[in-house]
């Protein structure tokens, strides 16, 4: 990396960027999913109630942008994962870990293709015809994002870039 930072530091920094974007996405989609799954019908004290009482429609574009950014940064660091991490994992017989990463890549693409309909449903949140579809797709994306995050986190604990 031009002698400024080591290769490991370079990839670890990108992994960190991926993490920060993923955390933002996780927070936004979890707020929104809670708001549609457990709507607040009257104001009440408590952090859980306030967590559910967010203006959920306002999160839609942010969720889409964060998902796409996280997807692209993840796609970029995936090249290094394939060489520096997956091969040692296979050598050490961490097959379930490797399998779950491949599971993660499929889920990431399946989530990506949902975004246009998700965005459309939320931008037309005043139409009751879309209520069930909006709730369903939001919950599916939320479960996907949590799955992607947990698998990525466990995999990094198993063998990070600088291991």
């Amino acid at each position, binding site marked *: 990396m031009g002698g400024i930072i080591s290769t490991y530091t370079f990839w670890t920094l990108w992994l960190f960027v991926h993490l920060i974007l993923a955390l933002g996405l996780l927070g936004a989609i979890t707020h929104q999913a809670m708001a549609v799954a457990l709507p607040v019908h009257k104001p009440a004290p408590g952090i859980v109630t306030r967590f559910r009482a967010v203006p959920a429609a306002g999160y839609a574009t942010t969720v889409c942008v964060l998902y796409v950014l996280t997807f692209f940064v993840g*796609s970029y660091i*995936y090249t290094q994962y*394939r060489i520096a991490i997956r091969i040692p994992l296979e050598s050490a017989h961490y*097959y379930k870990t490797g*399998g779950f990463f491949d*599971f993660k890549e499929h889920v990431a693409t399946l989530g990506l*293709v949902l975004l246009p*309909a998700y965005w459309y449903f939320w931008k037309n*949140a*005043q139409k009751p015809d879309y209520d069930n579809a909006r709730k369903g797709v939001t919950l599916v994306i939320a479960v996907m994002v949590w799955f992607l995050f947990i698998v990525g986190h466990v995999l990094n604990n198993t063998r990070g870039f600088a291991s």
Partner: protein
Amino acid sequence: MSTAATASKPMQPTSSLAMSRRFKAFALTFSISGTVVYCLVQYFNYPLFTYWPAVHRFVWGFGASSADDGPNMLWYGWSVTTILIASALGMIATVIPEQTVRKIPLWLVWLLPIFAIPYVIYSLMPWWTLAARQ
């Protein structure tokens, strides 16, 4: 209207894209077909391209791993193939009459990805088989 509904539901769409009938047709078709297309592309192994990260080699279509070039990566190619096909189907849907678009079951958008998960797990059987042999 409840507090939550007031908070989470704007009264009007906030962009012209959100009010577009053609975008609705595109978005629904893209998202519904995208899930199915990805599973088919992955099952039949039709990546638009293959990439070998160790040597930065790129070829159109499928290419196998080799001792010289190292491991191949197909996921990029599968994803791009899926996006292109789903986009094409979405574009076609924009010229379909609105009455037909209204008949598209909206629940397919969220139910198909759930149905796709068992297939995805099955497609990863080589990993699970190796893990079970340990």
